[in-house]
């Protein structure tokens, strides 16, 4: 568990390293590791000392890809498992048996990996919805901002929205944030019939979070400017602890999340990292278009979250569905 709140991608990487230095280095099992970007990301993170990686997949292909990009594999364990489904099974089994703390996606569809992770035989299912939490380090904002959900739940109902929020709050707690400040997205901060279309759902989620979650500040609807700029919030006389200081931006649609994040990545130089939350172990995804920094920060985020689960015995209190 991290002591100081994490407010940047670099601090996230440092936190993962501190966890390793404290003797709790996280073990990452890569499913179908024959993906050069994944191999490189894991090798780099291993070289920086914040994780131990196991590459499971087509061994000759893995070694060939590593050679092509001059990535040293000596420190990484490689387990030959050519068949993609078997590789996924092996990685998930390692997590189920307590021999891996993080599962990472390699050369297989996200949906195939998640299906395996959620297969009841492994006992890795959480109690609720699986969601993706994107955590952005945006130059000009004084802390990191999480956007969720941008990849897993296409049209969440209010129960799923609540669980998506709950997953993001867990990530925020793992990052040492207290209280966790949540802005529920909306184009206007005043609810108006003329422009609202998500009001009822949002109100339910906000009301429930206020009664059921401890150590949280939540308000909405807030547009991005009022959520992250004190000056903007002041101009609109929005006086709330979350205004101008949000940790989580709970969006209304997968499109809003994906597109707003990409605008910030493409044109605001934001460092992007993300993790799939809701299973008993974090699932890490990186994509080809991620920068080296993005990939490293994503792995660090998964390690920090895994450590939080371990140190707080998170899943023994939250409960698993079997």
């Amino acid at each position, binding site marked *: 568990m991290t002591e100081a709140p994490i407010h940047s991608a670099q601090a996230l990487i440092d936190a993962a390293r501190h966890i390793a230095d404290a003797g709790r280095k996280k073990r990452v099992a890569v499913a179908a590791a024959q993906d050069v970007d994944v191999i490189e990301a894991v090798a780099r993170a291993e070289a920086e000392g914040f994780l131990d990686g196991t590459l499971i997949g087509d061994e000759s292909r893995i070694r060939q890809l590593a050679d092509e990009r001059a990535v040293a594999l000596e420190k990484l364990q490689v387990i030959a498992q050519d068949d993609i489904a078997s590789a996924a099974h092996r990685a998930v089994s390692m997590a189920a048996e307590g021999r891996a703390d993080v599962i990472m996606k390699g050369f297989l569809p996200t949906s195939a990996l998640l299906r395996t992770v959620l297969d009841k035989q492994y006992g890795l299912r959480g109690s609720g919805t699986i969601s993706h939490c994107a955590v952005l380090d945006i130059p000009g904002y004084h802390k990191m901002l999480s956007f969720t959900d941008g990849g897993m739940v296409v049209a969440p109902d209010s129960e799923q929205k609540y669980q998506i929020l709950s997953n993001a709050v867990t990530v925020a707690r793992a990052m040492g944030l207290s209280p966790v400040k949540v802005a529920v997205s909306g184009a206007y901060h005043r609810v108006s019939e003329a422009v609202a279309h998500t009001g009822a759902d949002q109100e339910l989620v906000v009301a429930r979070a206020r009664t059921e979650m401890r150590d949280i500040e939540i308000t909405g609807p807030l*547009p991005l400017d009022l959520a992250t700029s004190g000056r903007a919030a002041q101009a609109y006389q929005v006086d709330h602890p979350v205004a101008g200081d949000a940790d989580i931006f709970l969006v209304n649609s997968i499109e809003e999340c994906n597109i707003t994040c990409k605008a910030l990545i*493409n*044109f605001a130089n934001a460092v992007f990292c993300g993790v799939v939350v809701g299973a008993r172990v974090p699932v890490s995804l990186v994509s080809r278009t991620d920068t080296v920094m993005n990939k490293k920060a994503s792995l660090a985020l998964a390690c920090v979250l895994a450590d939080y689960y371990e140190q707080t015995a998170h899943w023994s209190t939250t409960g698993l569905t079997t």
Partner: protein
Amino acid sequence: MTSADQSIGGFEQVRALVRRRLQDRDPVRTALVVPSSGEALKAVALAAAERLVAPVIVGDAALTQKTAQECGADLSGAEFIDLNQPDMAMMTAFQMAARGEIEAIVKGRGSTVDFLHHMLSDEAGFVRRGCLVMHVAGIRPARYDRMLFVTDAAVVPQPDLKAKVAMLGNLTNVCQACGLKCPRIAVLAAVEVVYPQMPATLDAAVLDKMADRGQITGAYIDGPLSFDCAVDRQAAEAKGITDSAVAGQADAMLAPNIETANGILKGMMLYGDAEVGGVLVGGIVPVVISTRYEEQEARYRSLLMALALATV
């Protein structure tokens, strides 16, 4: 086409276009409504000094003079319609526009939600039957090579396919008014392939096909496109999109819903090192609304977009 016609480098180019068009006509009669906002007054006064606009101040005249004095905005030559009730001032301006007495409207102080309410009311007569009012943001991010016109961050919450067809028409008009003959418009979604479970991708594919068949004209249209594929050629090529007239070089974007467009706009205003403006279209004349913390420069840029539309 020359390269200048193929993209708009920034607001300076829009300003030059407006100035050129105003060489052989009078300045644009522009109403400033509920004018007691220093930043709005300064923007309008600057445009008046440049002979781009002939200001008509609709609101509390005494308060306006006082505010103008405090912020150093020169209102000599402005016409005043003294109305100290904001609701009345808004309604008067919309009705004047409907009668053809005003060519552009700039909102000063007050709530945008209230302003929109008046604007869309039957009593104002400001929106012709069948016309769709929407917001187009003009954004010039420092890390892009051109202006991006994005809709709709402010009015239409969750457009259906029919509304999106109308929005593409309005968006094309704005781009053309600002000097772009055939804008490259990306219909945005979370992904660049069609997934039946994601309605935004279905609408985008339909709009793309409607453009193919000549049902939507005046623009190159491609969708669904993810944001990165729309503005980054390498990202598009990595996804196998190689034959698009839009991917990697979008001039404009239709977002699937209001929050998405708002997220792009606010993200760029705050963090994109971007020059930003915006205009409401679909009414009888173009209308400028601003966020409360926008300064004179941003309001002036928005005004330029409105003037480009008013001088076509």
